[in-house]
């Protein structure tokens, strides 16, 4: 699905790394990252819930930081390392989500998991403690309508235990 902006748009070659693989896309440079991931690369794990940066379902990692792929034109992430729910390095979070019952309908789950990855990595890098309050703040931009967030927060803390040991 093309957005209106690209009806008469020029195409450009854009190089970026997606889930560890070097990719070259020939797309209008203002095409949204989410559309490139889903339609050009078939990575449909990244979900669109609102298209205006309010729900967080489209969260992916760009050079380790969480971004909303519905708000970012692909030209802005040229030469970066993009990671989606389909990438490696998410196993412990994915297992924690299963174990604690943090995934119900599952539509927010990919965004929750990528955001959790960014949060935990940031805590490790900065040496800040992973607390329930910090997790709630980190995930406040990711909406979930099923769980009440309780079990998602449980999953984040549970991941920490498995990754760092008790």
């Amino acid at each position: 699905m093309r957005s209106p902006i690209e009806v008469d748009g020029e195409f450009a070659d854009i190089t970026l790394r997606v889930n560890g693989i070097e990719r070259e896309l020939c797309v209008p440079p203002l095409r949204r990252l989410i559309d490139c991931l889903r339609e050009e690369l078939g990575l449909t794990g990244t979900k669109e819930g609102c298209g205006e940066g309010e729900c967080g379902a489209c969260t992916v990692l760009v050079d380790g930081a969480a971004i909303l792929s519905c708000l970012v034109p692909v030209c802005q992430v040229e030469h970066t390392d993009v990671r989606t729910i389909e990438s490696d390095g998410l196993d412990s979070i994915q297992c924690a989500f299963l174990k604690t019952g943090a995934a119900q309908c599952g539509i927010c789950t990919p965004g929750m998991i990528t955001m959790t990855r960014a949060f935990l990595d940031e805590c490790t890098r900065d040496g800040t403690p992973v607390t329930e309050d910090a997790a709630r703040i980190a995930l406040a931009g990711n909406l979930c309508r099923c769980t009440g967030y309780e079990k998602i927060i449980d999953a984040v803390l549970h991941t920490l235990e498995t990754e760092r040991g008790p």
Partner: protein
Amino acid sequence: MQRRRREDNLCGMLAHVGRDLERPEGRAKVTGRAIYTADLAVPGAWVGGAVRSSVARGRLSGIDFDPAFDFSSVTIVGPADIPGENVVALIEEDQPLLCRESIEHFGEPLLLVAAPDRATLLEALSHIHPRIEAREPVLDMERSARVFKALVIEKGDADWIARPLATDARLFEGTYRTDSQEQLYIEPQACIAWPVDGDGTCLVKGSLQCPHYVQKALARTLGIAPEKARVVQLETGGGFGGKEDYPSIVACHAALLAHKARRPVKVIYERHEDLAVTPKRHPSRVTHRTLVDREGRLLAMDIDVLLDGGAYTTLSPVVLSRGAIHATGPYRCADVRIRGRVVATNHVPYGAFRGFGAPQTCFAIERQMDRIARALSIHPLELRQRNMLRIGDTTVTGQVLRESVGAADVLEDVAKRSGFDAHEWCESQARAGDTSKRRGLGLSFFFHGAGFTGSGEEMLRGQVEIELAADGVVEVRAGSTEIGQGTNAMFVAIAAEALGAAPDDVRIASPDTGRVPNSGPTVASRTCMVVGGCLARACRELGTRIGARMHDTSGERAPFRERALLYLATGGDARVHVTYEPPSGITWDDVHYRGDAYPVYGWGADVAEIEVDVDTCEVDVLRLYSSVDVGRAIQPMLVEGQIEGGSLQAVGFAHLEVVSTRDGRFEQDRLATCVIPTSLDAPKFDVKLFEHPYSGGPFGAKGVGELPMDGGAPAVASAIEDALGIHIDRVPATPERLLDACARAQTTRGGEPA
């Protein structure tokens, strides 16, 4: 972190029921492999959309096509292109799929367009201009003269209000309002339709709760036999009632476009369109007149329930029924009259949302109970305990409660755990002094009927089929959908338990009307109790057949798979088909609302702990305690998930989620303005499950889906009242409304309004 404290009075005998399994579809969901409708690659598919009305009421006199756009590049469908009937097949069938002439609400579909891609679609839509003569809309339900449904429920001396009152009795009157609420499933509405194939079959795949509803609607629209309409549910990103009936419209629109365009068409709503035109919770006004004695015992009740149904009937009559039946709350009362009506306005039709009328009436009765408690200086817990329904009591419809009544347990437990039993409700505010933040505690007590109202289940006759496949695995075929609540894991646990098999010996067929029988819709807290009950019966039957055959051949306790394969090898009948049979002794009179309104009820009690900023009136819900009797928690972790998630929706309903209209349009039509709770708004949940088994449910299970939606709003409202001393009679209790109420209370000196 340990929140599950179950009353384990039955467990131990069971191998799978009561033990958490991994969701069968869980791995696909957490790895991004699960396929939702928008994820499905359909080569050659076009995208569809609608031209919609820009007014709440009017007359469509024509449609202009701007020649600046080349319309030969798209497909256009108008009412004349509908091969079957131009109707949304539901209860009354007053709603057209495409407006004929009379426009009844904003956003009503007038014309459909399909295009090769979204950009062309939007371009085409922008060049189509309906000619509409606007008319004066009816937007105030209290002034509507058109009634979709009216009902009266009477018990005992229903006309008590007309007689002189006993001298030592006191009469309390209160009017309570609830606004609308958006379901806000995170995956918007979505369906894909394929054109009718050589075999005459139309295929639709989509995000939906009730594949057989969609099947029925498609058959009427396309003028084909129902079995020629094949509906497949894909992974569904939340429903909460919002995907109960509305997907029929999305699917029919997609199918009409696919039929004319002769290619598959995807109709995937953008969030704005979804918020602007899909049904939401019915706004309500409920008036209570309650007669009580000095000890606070309920002597008589007179209740008036009014719902705004919006422009078309949709599901409003059944929403009203459920709302009215729950209007007395879980309380005993001899003389009752309930009048209910749901009226037509020119709002976008209101529809199904978790709770289905009961959250509105539950809010009203719980606030009324608090009003009585405060006036009589009786502790709110005490007042509820004095009046709560017990085994042997009779409900407002004359139903005698014979079993599975956890009322006393949940009420006592939640009060004890939260400290509400020792809390001086509505007196803390006097003690609070001048701090800028005040804390409050509030209690609610509620029940929720499991399954369809009245004779619904008997008429539906839901079916389940199981078949022992060649690999020795039992396939479960049901029309019930997994929409996040845990149908798959719950079915696996029930089937494995009833078969004496391992969870691996069971697989769940995906809901496809071409392969699964009609189990009835996935609504009304019925999937576990009704469909799960049928599944347990089917599995026991198969297990018995296998056991009987095996006595002649091999040892008794070989693993299920081995026994199953042997059974198949000896020519055993592999398939069992079960139809729901209502429990014996159930009676219902649809005209007079007398009898067993529901086979059984779930019971719950909540305590909300809040903090409110006295200057801004912003409310922070800190903790929500829930004690809930679910009969049997087939999958305890999933049940907790239902309670936590449902309770948060109720907390949002209480103070955060605003849905307002102007000129018949929802003002919150983008996610930037339509607010639901985030992880920071969510309280810490403290859930405890009770199990008072129900003999008619699988392993004692009742329903749980809707129950937690009932209690959150009145508990939060009660806690705000505790903190601020003002009576809260409307939700959402936004800061703006609270500031107004505080100002009014100050001018009238004293919190209790007249």
